[in-house]
């Protein structure tokens, strides 16, 4: 059975005004329902630009970005927020608020202009909290949460949007090992259990290789490899993209990358 195509990029090229080179050049990507995609690459390789182009915040100079068969820039923000839930890298908390209130923000694209919050919206919020194993946090103030709990709440907010695609921009940056693993396990479970499509930008090559169905490797805005982790993460490609000597070892059928120490030559 062919799964539904949610996000399709073909030959997308982007350049910010005044920038000396393209931020993205000829990048293609197809994300289907029930697939977990990881986007890898060094700093400045165009990962966040890829997300912005995919979600219509940056208009490609060439190529096409489509969401459920419609150009990304043709969606209204409100309609798009019912299809795609995003965890951006940064956001502010100007005023103190509670966890349940924060997750309720995810229902805003579903609320009518004058109507109130309905029982169905509250139910969606509770479902999202349960799915992220965060039901017991619902009445806490946001600023009392640990980094890992905070990311789970932001994921719950995105789930409350009831999206078909989740986009996560470095969600595990600054999380410790346990919380990092919990988040990857959670995204994998949502993809398998609810048939969501997921696109995660991350620096964790090894976790991406173990959890994702497909990886896209970017280098200076160009695709350096795309496909199953075992096909993309070869020693030659990884060394070229990350500009560091590595060794690749298989673990549970997935490639794991081990960066090598520099050997000083004996005098």
């Amino acid at each position: 059975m062919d799964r539904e195509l949610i996000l399709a990029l073909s030959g997308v090229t982007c350049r910010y005004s005044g920038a000396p080179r393209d931020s993205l050049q000829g990048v293609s990507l197809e994300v289907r329902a029930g697939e977990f995609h990881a986007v890898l690459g060094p700093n400045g390789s165009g990962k966040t630009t890829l997300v912005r182009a995919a979600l219509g915040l940056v208009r490609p100079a060439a190529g096409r970005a489509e969401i459920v068969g419609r150009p990304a820039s043709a969606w209204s923000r409100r309609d798009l927020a019912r299809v795609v839930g995003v965890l951006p890298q940064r956001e502010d908390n100007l005023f103190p608020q509670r966890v349940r209130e924060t997750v309720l923000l995810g229902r805003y694209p579903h609320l009518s202009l004058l109507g109130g919050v309905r029982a169905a919206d509250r139910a969606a919020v509770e479902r999202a909290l349960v799915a992220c194993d965060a039901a017991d946090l619902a009445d806490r103030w946001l600023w009392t949460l640990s980094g890992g709990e905070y990311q789970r709440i932001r994921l719950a907010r995105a789930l409350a949007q009831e999206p078909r695609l989740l986009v996560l921009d470095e969600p595990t940056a600054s999380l410790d090992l346990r919380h990092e693993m919990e988040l990857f396990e959670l995204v994998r479970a949502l993809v398998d259990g609810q048939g969501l499509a997921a696109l995660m930008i991350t620096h964790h090559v090894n976790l991406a290789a173990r959890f994702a169905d497909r990886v896209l490797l970017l280098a200076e805005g160009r695709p350096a490899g795309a496909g199953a982790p075992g096909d993309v993460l070869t020693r030659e490609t990884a060394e070229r993209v990350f500009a560091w000597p590595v060794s690749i070892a298989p673990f549970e059928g997935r490639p794991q990358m081990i960066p090598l120490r520099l050997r000083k030559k004996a005098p």
Partner: protein
Amino acid sequence: MKYVLLAVAAVATLAAAVLLGPADVPLRDVLGSPIVWQLRLPRAVLAFLVGGALGVSGVALQALVRNPLADPFLLGLSGGAGLGAVAAIALDLPGPWALPLAAFVGAVSAMALVYRLGLMGGAELDPRILLLGGVAVGAFAAAITTAIVSLAEATELRNAFLWLWGGFSGASWTTVLVILVYAPLPLAVLAAAARPLDLLALGEEPAQYLGADVRRLKRLVYLAASLLTAAAVAVAGVIGFVGLIVPHLCRLVWGRLHRALFPTAFLVGGTLLAAADTLARTVVAPRELPVGIVTALLGVPVFAFLLRRWTVS
């Protein structure tokens, strides 16, 4: 319960505004007294409407520039309005509406100029440039205003100076009617923006991912809040601190969601300004103080308290 208390406070303040004053109106004559019907009641209602408009405008602009210390007058409007009003006084323009109209034109011109500055970076309104541009435009207008005042005659000067500190002595049912016809449109625009403004507190990019059309939102909110402030300043002069303090008080009690903040800021702002105006015309009766002096004398201590709270937490 909080809402009941607020409603009681609003009604009590309006009643006090009608009952108190230099002329002694016996309680049983209140309903028939021309002093009450022609002077005190329209004045109290106008003060309430202007206070409400400033409160709502303050909530909206603080959310827009994402800075809780913003004030509607920080965006250059007071400078523009003052320049317009002082020019009208210096040129001795005739008619009862010359001064408010000139002040309104001045405020709207300043607003347009700041808006244009805010768009300098491209199609996106930049809140930081709005703030800085507002301060700059306000300072420039204030300089010209002072130049005009320094060349004016003594009585003109006194009038202009008093106008700059705000007051409701010219209030009439006609002014009330003008505000009642004018204010609903910007208020409706802001009410419709309540939920997107909740999202904007997260930042512009996160707000877009949650469905807010941020570019349009920023423009609409800036224009609506500024037009509301411009009308307030045109009929009542420059009344500081209401638009700064009221949003904070409301956030303390009602939280951060704009669906609750807008109506409560209207009622709290209205109540506070009606009370301040009653004080302004009774404490030194039969003369009266500019109401802006009363709001500043009350507002600065409250503001200091809020700042302390802010830095402690």
